[in-house]
């Protein structure tokens, strides 16, 4: 039998060919010069065989990212796995094993047994016993990971891009679980290892919240209902009165309130578990500098932003002079409505990885919790403006969206203030974080979804014309 290392070397070119089709591949748009095997480990069997592989993708000097693959090897690939085919190796087929429940079951077994294979450590969290009879299937289309759901019980997140250093997702889940935090999915197991003596995290197993819906779906359902109420009003004879989001059936405010409480509880628990301290000298200047830098970059690309430059710079500079201690701590780092799930027992925060494009050192650096709050406030604004309904009268549409956004942002902050200090007390900093986020959104929408550009631009107009 060919060794795992040789097998990987054999199919490296084929991997280079399939990489750009993978949703989680971060290097889309840049040519792939080559795929260099980093390590390959046999995890199971001969037929079918499971190989864990890490490769480095060469996209030029600045872009050498590492990715993990789970490769299945069979002499006879069943039709149902045809779509997972990667390459032929001798008379055998090599394919992406995440689609093969027979092989993914091995991962659960290895974790349950607490096995280490050539430096790959499979483990369960303390006190956890796994039911290894569960069959898996890959779920959804995630940006940077692949997740496997086992039965209706567990979800295994495989971090596709292998970053040096332990994953903040795993780290924060463990910290929160140690305090019994109810607002996370309980961590159950992990796959870890090391590359060049630096720890890396390959996978994290958590409880699967089997009957959950994400906050974005919940919020847009509410907006849809409000828009429908207003469409009815629009067609009515006589004077038109806008429907109040508080009066329509799909009101989201009490959910937003509970969501605020959940986020505040997670923040408080993170501070308890991993510490909180007054920001070091220079923190606020660094925050402001960072905001200015981002603005510089986006201004260079998006001329529509220039009219707002002065107001934005003034809001960022206002941060420098803030008095009184600003506490900093570990935070979620990329919080929005898509990162929260409504389960039958309440709101749960997921994916503590932070912004995937940001270096690890920055993601794990203590910062203000207002960053997370600002992310969520911006997300409410997006949810309110996202649905392409009621565009006949853009002014009316915007007014409806604003009414929804305001009501739910307020409810979120009210809920937050029940479990932690009211974020609105630090209006200048919160305001700056919101604007910074909106500037980032302008840049993102400009390059990716120009149709959505008006959403962050309108928010910047609104936020810079109302004083914090």
């Amino acid at each position, binding site marked *: 039998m060919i060794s795992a290392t040789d097998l990987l070397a054999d199919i490296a070119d084929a991997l280079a060919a399939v990489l750009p089709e993978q949703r989680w591949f971060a290097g889309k748009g840049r040519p792939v010069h080559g795929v260099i095997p980093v390590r390959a480990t046999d995890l199971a069997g001969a037929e079918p065989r499971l190989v864990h592989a890490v490769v480095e993708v060469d996209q030029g000097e600045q872009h050498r990212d590492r990715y993990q693959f789970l490769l299945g090897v069979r002499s006879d690939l069943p039709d*149902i796995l045809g779509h997972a085919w990667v390459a032929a190796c001798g008379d055998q087929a090599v394919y992406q094993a995440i689609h093969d429940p027979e092989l993914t079951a091995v991962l659960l077994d290895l974790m349950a047994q607490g096995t280490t294979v050539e430096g790959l450590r499979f483990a369960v969290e303390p006190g956890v016993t796994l039911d290894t009879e569960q*069959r898996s*299937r890959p779920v959804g289309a995630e940006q940077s990971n692949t997740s496997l759901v086992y039965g*209706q019980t567990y979800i295994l997140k495989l971090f596709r891009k292998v970053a040096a250093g332990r994953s903040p997702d795993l780290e924060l889940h463990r910290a929160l679980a140690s305090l019994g935090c109810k607002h996370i999915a309980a961590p159950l197991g992990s796959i870890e290892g090391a590359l060049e003596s630096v720890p890396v995290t390959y996978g994290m197993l958590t409880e699967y919240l*089997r*009957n*959950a*819906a*994400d906050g974005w*779906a*919940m919020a847009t*359902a*509410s907006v*849809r*209902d409000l828009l*429908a109420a207003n469409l009815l009003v629009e067609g009515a004879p006589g004077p038109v009165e806008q429907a109040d989001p508080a*009066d329509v*059936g*799909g*009101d989201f405010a*009490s959910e937003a*309130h509970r969501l605020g409480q959940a986020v505040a509880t997670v923040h408080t628990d993170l501070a308890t578990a991993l510490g909180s301290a007054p920001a070091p000298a220079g923190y606020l200047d660094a925050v402001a500098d960072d905001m200015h830098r981002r603005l510089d970059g986006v201004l260079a690309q998006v001329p529509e932003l220039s009219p707002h430059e002065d107001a934005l710079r003034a809001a960022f500079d206002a941060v420098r002079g803030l008095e009184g201690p600003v506490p900093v701590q570990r935070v979620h780092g990329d919080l929005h409505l898509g990162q929260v799930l*409504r389960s*039958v*027992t309440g709101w749960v925060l997921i994916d503590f990885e932070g912004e995937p494009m940001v270096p690890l050192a920055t993601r794990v650096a203590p910062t203000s919790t207002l960053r997370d709050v600002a992310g969520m406030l911006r997300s409410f604004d997006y949810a309110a403006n996202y649905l392409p309904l009621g565009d006949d009268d853009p002014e009316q549409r915007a007014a409806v969206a604003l009414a929804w956004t305001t009501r739910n942002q307020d409810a979120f902050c009210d809920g937050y203030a029940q479990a932690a200090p009211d974020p609105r007390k630090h209006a200048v900093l919160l305001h700056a974080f919101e604007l910074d986020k909106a500037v980032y959104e302008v840049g993102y929408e400009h390059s990716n979804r120009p149709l959505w550009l008006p959403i962050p631009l309108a928010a910047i107009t609104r936020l810079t014309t109302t004083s914090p």
Partner: protein
Amino acid sequence: MKGAPHTGEAMLPDGHLVEPQAGDYEHAKAAPTDPHWYKRAVFYEVLVRAFHDHDGNGAGDLAGLTRKLDYLEWLGIDCLWLPPFYASPLRDGGYDISDFRAVLPEFGTVEDFVVLLDEAHKRGIRVITDLVMNHTSDQHPWFQESRRDPEGPYGDFYVWNDKDTGYPDARVIFVDTETSNWTYDPVRRQFYWHRFFSHQPDLNYDNFEVGEAMLDVLRFWLDLGIDGFRLDAVPYLFEEEGTNCENLPRTHEFLKRCRKVIDDEYPGRVLLAEANQWPADVVEYFGDPAAGGDEAHMAFHFPLMPRIFMAVRRESRFPISEILAQTPPIPSGAQWGIFLRNHDELTLEMVTDEERDYMYSEYVKDPRMRANIGIRRRLAPLLDNDRNQLELFTALLLSLPGSPVLYYGDEIGMGDNIWLGDRDSVRTPMQWTPDRNAGFSSCDPGRIYLPVIMDPVYGYQAVNVEAQSTSSQSLLNWTRRMIQVRHQHSAFGLGDFSELSSSNPSVLAYRRSHVSNHDAGDDLVICVNNLSRFPQPVELDLGEHAGGVPVELTGGVHFPPIGELPYLLTLPGHGFYWFQIVPPNTGREP
């Protein structure tokens, strides 16, 4: 009570009152033996006064109800639930009983009731009624004797005291009308205890004879052939200093005594406990799970109803998902009763602090939801007479775990008359035909006990049984068809419940699965409900049933077989599907 046998017609030398005996009457032929009939049954709450007036005096009666049994059989009803029809001064809607062994004269006689039972049983319909065990009317001869003669056989039948300071931890339930649970009786010159109205003294269950007397009341009706009782206000039977006097262990002991009488002497009859409490507390009234339940066979699941309304209003399944997730398992012999409308309602006092906060934020602040919880409305007006929602709500009622209880008239979408006030707005005469008095009574319209509904939308000329029974598209025929489908599938009544996960918060999907002892009886049903007014897609994880074929239950259409991938369905606004999952290539029609 002249002319009819009643309690206290005569007195024995030892001071005991002579009470009517079951042996004085004919007995109805028993319903067919079926120990778990109540799990499969569709119940129908009917007010005798409101259903049909046989003698033409303007109020419905037992004989009138008997004449409408053919209709109820046609509709597919398995069991009637009658609110109290006992002799009563009617100061509390008949729940103030002045003679447990006599029928309110305006409704007829005990003989009429036996005829009703007999005719119902001939049609496979059972009958249960309310029995108030906690208290009587102050007009009951027991109470009259008790106040007159403290040393006589009834002297200790009620809770008497020289002072009004006992049991201070028991709350006053009817705070609007009562200031204390004690009231002074000038005849006996003592205070008597009452958890409800002061004209309803509590029976003293510390006195063993009271329990025996009440068991004899049960036997009286059971001997006549009744199929069970809904036991009213059960949490309050016993009192104990230092407690809130609710749900005491001795109350449960007494219920076990009642259940033993049923099991030993009247197998197949049922007890339904009215405990307007949180499901986690109500399950105590089913008794010991190891014995399959040894107290009540059934209890109402109160919080589910407002949660269904909330879920559809919010277009979110979570209000329902949460309450079902919080509902503990029940003993094997037990069953929930579920309803959309009845004359009971959820009150905020009964819930936990956390739930009260939830109810307050989701419910009480919303004017429409507040109306639905506080004022009694019928289903159709609550749903703006929207046929799609009426069907969705009925489909939920018929498929969620528990035995459904329909409220009379809701099957034709009857309206209410809010000008009659809280209690009477939903108690107007059943609308049979477009003729005078809606075919309810031949009396002079001015004599009718409550006016029939006459508005243009819900009035009897538009909404009545006669018109709807001839239209294949009517709500009545649709409801009848859905009841038929329910009866064809044991999963609805006997099956397990598990919610199916989906990422769409507006879609509620669940599986009802019944594994029977014999191979052919297995039944697996999937229900998918769109709580939103907009069309919705949903992807269900049905991997466990890979290879199976969903067959839609109302039309028998075979849907594409289930594969390894999530099963995609699209639903119209407020649409729903019921599927049976059958093995591939069996082609079995539902």
